């Protein structure tokens, strides 16, 4: 079944989606469509396989290397299927100084995973990522699309336990921070496509 999926091009029969994405950019800027195309595939398949990567390169008319370069730049795109909860630990300077390495080691111990690995039951994936842009609230742990800031050993443990039981904890709001009173960003394809339409 999985094999069949990879053989059949993703955008086959999805000409409307493809046309909509490519239509956003002028002809000389066709390369710009790499990002939305990657996102489209990832949203549907939870990762972008090598075959999909080649397919996108072919659609946009560039070498596969370039798509890979774009894709690997953003930690939001995955080459391997990720688990239900994708734990991303910022490892850049501020978080590193604030103890993200210790947090990584802790999570690694708790989940038994190494960097870039997904556990057998497909619940957790663990990844060290570059700056998540929340240096003021280091260390930061991103679970799927949600930021957990100023993570401590106990809050981390609490979060992992909750995730294990299938519950996604509401991240504690930062007092006085940028997140104060901010509406939680709505993420979901229906939302996005709806806006475009």
């Amino acid at each position, binding site marked *: 079944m999985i094999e069949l999926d990879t053989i059949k091009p993703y955008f086959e029969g999805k000409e409307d989606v493809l046309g909509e994405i490519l239509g956003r950019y002028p002809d*000389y800027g066709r390369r710009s469509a790499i990002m939305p195309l990657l996102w489209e595939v990832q949203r549907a398949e939870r990762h972008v396989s*090598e075959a999909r*990567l080649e397919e996108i390169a072919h659609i946009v008319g*560039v*070498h*596969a*290397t*370039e798509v*890979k*370069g774009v894709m*690997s*730049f*953003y*930690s939001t795109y995955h080459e391997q299927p990720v688990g239900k909860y994708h734990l991303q630990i910022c490892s*850049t300077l501020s978080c590193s100084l604030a103890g993200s390495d210790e947090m990584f080691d802790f999570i690694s111990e708790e989940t038994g995973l190494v960097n870039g690995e997904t556990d057998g039951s497909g619940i957790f994936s663990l990844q060290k990522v*570059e*700056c998540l842009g929340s240096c003021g609230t280091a260390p930061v742990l991103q679970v799927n699309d949600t930021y957990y800031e100023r993570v401590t050993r106990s809050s981390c443990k609490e979060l992992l336990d909750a995730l294990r039981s299938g519950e996604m904890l509401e991240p504690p709001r930062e007092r006085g921070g940028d997140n104060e009173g901010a509406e939680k960003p709505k993420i979901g394809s229906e939302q996005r496509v709806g806006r475009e339409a």
Partner: protein
Amino acid sequence: MKVKVNDVELDLEPGTSAIDAVFAAGYDVPYFCSQEYMSPIGACRMCLGKVGAPRKDRETNDWIRDAETGEPQIFYFPNLMATCTTAIMDGMVIDTLSKEVRQAQSGMMEFHLINHPLDCPVCDKGGACELQDRAYEYGAGTSRFEFDKRHQEKHHALSELITLDRERCIHCKRCVRYFEEVPGDEVLDFIERGGHTYIGTVDEGLPSYFTGNITDICPVGALLDATSRFRGRNWEYDHTRTVSLDDASGAAIMVDARTGRIERVKGARNTQVNLDWIDDSTRFGHEYVDAPDRLKTPLIRKGALLEPASWEEAAQFIASRLAVAGKRVGVAVRSDATLEEGVAAKALAEHLRGHAEHFPRPAASVIAENPATFTDVATSDAIFVVGDPTEEVPTLDLRIKDALRGVAPPELLAHGVPIADLRLKERMPRKRSILTVAAPYRTNLMRHAGQELIYPAGQEEDLFGGVGSGKAGASLAAEQLNQLKSALSDAKKPVIILGAFVLASAAATRAAEALAESVGAKVMKLGPMANSYGLEALEVTSDGGYADLLTQSDVLILSNLNPAQDVQIGERLRNLDLLIVHDSFETETTGLAHVVLPAKTGYEKEGTVVNLEGRFLNVYPAPVDSGTSEDFIGVVRTLGEALGVRLDGRSVRSARRSLAKTLNHDLAALPEEGLLAPVDAKEIGETVADTVAGNLLLTSSLLKVDRLRRNPKLRAAHGDVALRVNPADAEAQNLEAGANVTVNIGGVARSATIKITEDAPEGLMLLPATFDQALGLTSAEIVPAADLVSA
């Protein structure tokens, strides 16, 4: 624009970069990411300088002046600037000597060295490494970084020819930019981000013909030539700057030899020809020179066997046989022989009352009436290519892509080529519309062309006739051809490039020249070999041509030619009174020869060649141990001694004396970029009856098929000789991809591997020709290799 660099005042053109101002003033700043022919991006931050400029008062429109001195006040940028991305301004002041600047540079150096391994003793770049040199000049000498360095893959084979050491990479992005900006094949990119960034590819084997250049421009030992890995240290090589004799472009190369062996070939700079770039075949195709079966001593036939002898014995033998042999003498040299060898061949033929000829020589003249130079191509606004320049003259492929960027080659400054040309940008839009490529099959260059015209092979005359008259021709629609004609007519500097298929037909060439005249275009003719132009200009030609020479001589003296690969010609050669073959390797023809003389390769000769622009370029010999091998000059010298005559061309000097009389140029020690002196065009020869039918097209090839067997590394990277077949034909003829077959073309049997590709048009197979096969349409028979074995 007046600029002051430290204490030197300069007047430079607007648009010059600050780094060039610094170098023009005779000062120095370190840099790793800038490269003369690529866009400056300020990635390495090494070229920091303290930069400031005066400011004008908006109200008075006068300089804001210093209250005390009354001089315009200099406002410095708040931070040190990367001078490579800073354009000069009027009155700009650049400081590169202050303590602040030096400290910043040595600080950056320390950053660069943080993750760079202390590999220098085992690194092939050691001794010629920009990082090493600059660390010595600008580094602090110590590091305060006391943690573990980043560890990554040490030996990653990007392709068979290029090794990547990821630990050594300093992320200057030269290689990544090179692929995008120069050949336009983006096969290398940064993968990951931040501290994890590395250079990588997912296009296996770097599918490009110009990959080797990244090893030249890598400022550290990250990208290295895998073929010369660990062969020697940079200070041990004997560097010889010479000219590549692989194609007609005359690209400058640096041949590095050690203990009599060529270990590597690098690109050298010729600002008028190849800039810094050479193709992979030129770079990696030198292995054959040291092949173990190289002929190193003359051989004389004694009965059925060829036995080693000295040059004197061979010359005596030839002299005694000449006395009793028939009188019809033919002398033929391959078209990559130098002008001096041409003089020698002519003098020998004249003395023996015979004819001299060079081969391969197309039906039409390779000397154009209104010749275009590479610079003309690179600055042209309408280019019409008929042929496949990527395979015929790879340098031209890159210069055409220069024209698509629309940036003229830079003007030289006091220190040479500007280090940072601010007109060049990353990912510049390409003016594809100016390029039209026509060929009988899909060529590599068509990927970059605005218009591609695929016409039936052999109909070049109709194609040019169609463009000229605006009527449909060569199976192409009239509107396509009309559009092309108006593009050429409207352009200010149109150039028409005529490849091998056009030159193979005198009528087509005449039609092309007529078109060029009507639209006012310059013409570039792609001669088949390195000195086709020069040998034709020197008139090393005979009326009957090479074919007549082979069939109507009693005595044949052949240099580097192998006509006997055609068994029918071989039968004819068997009955000659005397066959003397001068070659570097044993061939079918040496097997029939009475005397075999060992020949020098293009890397070992001294002389002069003329490239397709009409540019005279000196060729210098690299110190290669090739036994008693001689070039054709040596053959003529020894023969002359045996015959008791002093022939012109018995030495390079005597040949040059003779050349000075006919060409009016002193060819000793020409400038590095050569001497551009096109000779007058000649009458195009009589039309040879064109063969219009055939199922196989013999094409030019970047990979020299005659040498491929002795170039194992190049062969491993680019594969065997491929017979390209259209999928429909493959199915009809039941041919499988990757199968080995024998292709019978007349009396020549060639082995090839089937490659099924849409590039080949239906009903036409493509096979690269050997040096001795005339390009163009022919009929061939395909025999599966397995059948041969069973038979």
